[in-house]
């Protein structure tokens, strides 16, 4: 076992907690004995491993949870909505305790309050004999050896203190801090608010759509910590939040000062002014904070050793043996024969394969030049192998998308409760595989779409009943492979989009000219424009029109596209189309002027010659007649500012993305090749028609074209060129297709 035991513990506990959440969410629909057993085992194992490391807080808390799960397994108590909710909260809390233990931090008052709250909720479900244990687990001062800071002096104030810093993106996600403060007013009396805006740039350099505000709030309230925290639930992921209870320890304020981004002195003044700390308390807190800072430089290498030495409970050998034993047990449980590999190593392998592909292409060119039959044969044999290695290496990075879909179970459950809507999440195609890096980046846009579907798409239960629909709304997540890419759909069976309303709204906003006609698809796409809100009324959750455009931009950054289908009264489907991998693609090499360009092969439909007659027929407009179809085209020479060349014949490469087609006019066609995408430097990032670069076998650099952008441009140019009678051309197009 080369890995650090602590790392294994971290990974294992995360997996177990995830398993616990998954089971709990399933349990809401009922479960059998085996499931209950598995659930019990999750808590039991976490408790066991934590015990080995001497993480007493985790053990204490998990013990209570384990007890409840044991009774559940034995049928002494029945599953109920309350119980599931309490257990989900427990799961989150165990996660937080584990994090804390690993970071070797003390249990904060805030966290221990939270734990007490959850234990309270569990009280009704646990057997009497552990009541004592639970009480003990709730009082952190009793457990653990290091207590010197836990018994520190307390501050005088009897107010809650809330420190919140909203993320820069909070507006773009459709959230506004103000309503959260207003909500707090309902929980008690806000005795002081200080808006922290020291990060606010000058009017000249400010990004008006980024948030720079944070708040220090004093609140007099009888509400529990959970209730106060609940006020910020919707922005939980978009803010840094600290809540200190009345009479908190000074050391906690010291932690606060240390953890917040502002200068200690500035914060001190704010805390002092809003009455959270007296002058003396402030001095102590600042002193504590300075000490904290000195301590907070642990030597990474000696970390594990420190834990063990500090705990002084076990010898390292014992830890190894115990963990090894657990690993064996785990291996027996899920006989899934897998090996853990460091993601960085995998990336390195992929990079090397990329280099191999390039080198292979170089060999091929040389072999062709030498023109020796035996050499050609071996080279072609090798290039087959290289191709296979490439495919297998890429396969290694492929992960089923299901895992990232599953986390929406929890989101849907929580949000549906908040919104008072009954919502079910249905997942299809969870086995569909996608490059890991793409999966990581697709999470946020998906989250936004799912929230949007729940908030705006689905109607309230009463409305649904009136419409004769089942009261329970459904959000669908679906993934499948389609022509060299993957398609992810987020759909709902809600109200659907009303094209007329959208168009009216867009006109009102000046996004569309009053006499400009759009087809339904184009109208739907309007909701992806910046500054467009479809909701009749704006809710706190989303729908301020800053969001869908961010989704679109994120997807486009992954070389993907978004399109929308909707049926009024039936629902809406948002379809995301993504390339399978971002690293290596099959490309089609073309020449413009003296340079070489690569077009992703799966977007190429066909190549035709642009004849003299075609050019004349187009009368200087940018479209030709392709077997009765209107095909807009772009001259890459113009787009990429190349000098006109001597070539007498130009070629059109017909490319297609989704349902849109366009022609790209080039000077020469070279044929297919495997392409390793190298990202472009910062300097080129704003170039819109370019996706990356690659190195050819000859050592030459070729630019990889961003086809969706080019198609967009070709179609757009055609529409402006045709000057208004867009409707007419659309008719022609449709008419032509019928033939």
């Amino acid at each position: 076992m080369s890995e650090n035991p602590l790392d294994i513990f971290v990974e294992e506990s995360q997996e177990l907690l995830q398993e616990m959440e998954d089971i709990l969410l399933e349990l809401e629909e009922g479960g059998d004995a085996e499931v209950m057993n598995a659930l019990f085992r999750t808590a039991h194992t976490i408790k066991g491993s934590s015990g080995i490391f001497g993480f007493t807080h985790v053990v204490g808390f998990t013990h209570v949870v384990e007890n409840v799960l044991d009774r559940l397994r034995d049928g002494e108590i029945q599953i109920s909505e309350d119980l599931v909710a309490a257990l989900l909260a427990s799961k989150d809390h165990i996660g937080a305790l584990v994090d804390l233990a690993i970071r070797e931090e003390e249990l904060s008052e805030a966290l221990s309050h939270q734990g007490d709250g959850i234990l309270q909720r569990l009280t009704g479900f646990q057997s009497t004999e552990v009541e004592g244990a639970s009480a003990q687990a709730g009082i952190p001062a009793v457990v653990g050896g290091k207590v010197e800071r836990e018994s520190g002096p307390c501050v005088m104030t009897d107010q809650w203190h809330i420190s919140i810093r909203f993320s820069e993106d909070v507006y773009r996600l459709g959230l506004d801090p103000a309503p959260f403060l207003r909500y707090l007013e309902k929980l008690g009396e806000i005795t002081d608010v200080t808006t922290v805006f020291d990060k606010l740039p000058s009017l000249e350099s400010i990004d008006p759509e980024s948030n720079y505000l944070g708040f220090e709030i004093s609140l007099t309230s009888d509400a529990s910590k959970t209730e106060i925290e609940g006020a910020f639930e919707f922005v939980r992921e978009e803010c840094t939040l600290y809540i200190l209870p009345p009479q908190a320890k000074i050391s906690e304020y010291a932690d606060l000062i240390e953890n917040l981004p502002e200068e200690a002195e500035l914060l001190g003044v704010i805390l002092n002014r809003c009455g959270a700390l007296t002058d003396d308390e402030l001095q102590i807190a600042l002193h504590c904070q300075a000490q904290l800072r000195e301590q907070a430089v642990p030597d990474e290498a000696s970390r594990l050793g420190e834990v063990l030495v500090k705990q002084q409970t076990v010898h390292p050998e014992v830890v190894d043996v115990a963990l090894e034993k657990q690993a064996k047990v785990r291996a027996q449980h899920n006989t899934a024969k897998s090996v853990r590999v460091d993601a960085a190593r995998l990336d390195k392998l992929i990079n090397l394969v990329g280099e191999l592909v390039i080198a292979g292409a170089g060999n091929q060119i040389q072999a062709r030049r030498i023109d020796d039959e035996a050499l050609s044969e071996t080279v072609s044999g090798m290039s087959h192998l290289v191709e296979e290695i490439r495919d297998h290496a890429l396969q290694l990075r492929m992960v089923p998308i299901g895992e990232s879909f599953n986390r929406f179970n929890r989101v849907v459950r929580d949000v549906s409760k908040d919104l008072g809507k009954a919502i079910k999440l249905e997942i299809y195609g969870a086995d569909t595989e996608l490059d890991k890096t793409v999966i990581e980046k697709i999470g946020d846009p998906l989250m936004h779409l799912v929230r949007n579907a729940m908030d705006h798409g689905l109607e309230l239960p009463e409305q649904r009943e009136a419409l004769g629909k089942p009261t329970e709304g459904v959000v669908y997540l679906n993934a499948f492979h389609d022509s060299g890419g993957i398609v992810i759909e987020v759909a709902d069976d809600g109200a659907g989009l009303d094209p007329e309303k959208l168009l009216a709204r867009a006109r009102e906003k000046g996004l569309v000219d009053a006499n400009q006609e759009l087809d339904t698809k184009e109208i739907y796409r309007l909701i992806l424009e910046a500054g467009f809100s479809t909701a009749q009324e704006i809710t706190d959750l989303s729908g301020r029109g800053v969001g869908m455009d961010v989704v679109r931009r994120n997807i486009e950054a992954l070389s993907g596209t978004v399109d929308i289908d909707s049926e009024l009264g039936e629902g809406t489907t948002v379809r995301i189309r993504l390339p399978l991998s971002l690293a290596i693609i099959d490309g089609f090499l073309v020449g413009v002027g003296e340079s070489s360009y690569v077009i992703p092969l799966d977007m190429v439909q066909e190549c035709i010659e642009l004849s003299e007659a075609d050019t004349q027929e187009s009368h200087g407009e940018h479209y030709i007649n392709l077997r009765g179809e209107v095909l807009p085209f772009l001259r890459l020479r113009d787009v990429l500012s190349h000098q006109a060349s001597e070539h007498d014949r130009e070629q059109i490469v017909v490319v297609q993305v989704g349902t849109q087609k366009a022609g790209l006019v080039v000077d020469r066609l070279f044929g297919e090749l495997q392409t390793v995408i190298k990202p472009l430097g910062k300097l080129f990032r704003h170039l819109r028609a370019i996706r990356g670069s690659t190195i050819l076998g000859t050592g030459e650099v070729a630019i990889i074209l961003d086809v969706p952008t080019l198609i967009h441009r070709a179609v757009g140019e055609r529409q402006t060129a045709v000057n208004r009678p867009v409707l007419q051309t659309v008719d022609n197009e449709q008419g032509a297709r019928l033939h």
Partner: protein
Amino acid sequence: MIEVNKDGTRSCCQVHEKMTIYQAAAMRDELLNAYCDCAELEVDLSRVDEIDSAGLQLLLALKQTAIAQDKPVRFVNHSVHVVDIIHLFGIEQFFGDQILMPSEASTTH
């Protein structure tokens, strides 16, 4: 979005109706133009009937920039919506004492 009346080196500008995230980008440009184009600026907020954090943040940035460059910028005739959010964020002091608060008591904590 804003209407500027120039009187020598002194400008008076009237902000119209909405100051929210939707207008933030355009509003910033117009405010910046008005600000750069004068030696003294008065911003009339009487017609603002909707303002959110993004809108208020712009006012803060304007005032802060003005203070840093020592250029007189005043906000006058705050509408109830503006007063409401200024009070909510507890930044009456930063904007100076020209705001007429609905009740004196609520400002003195």
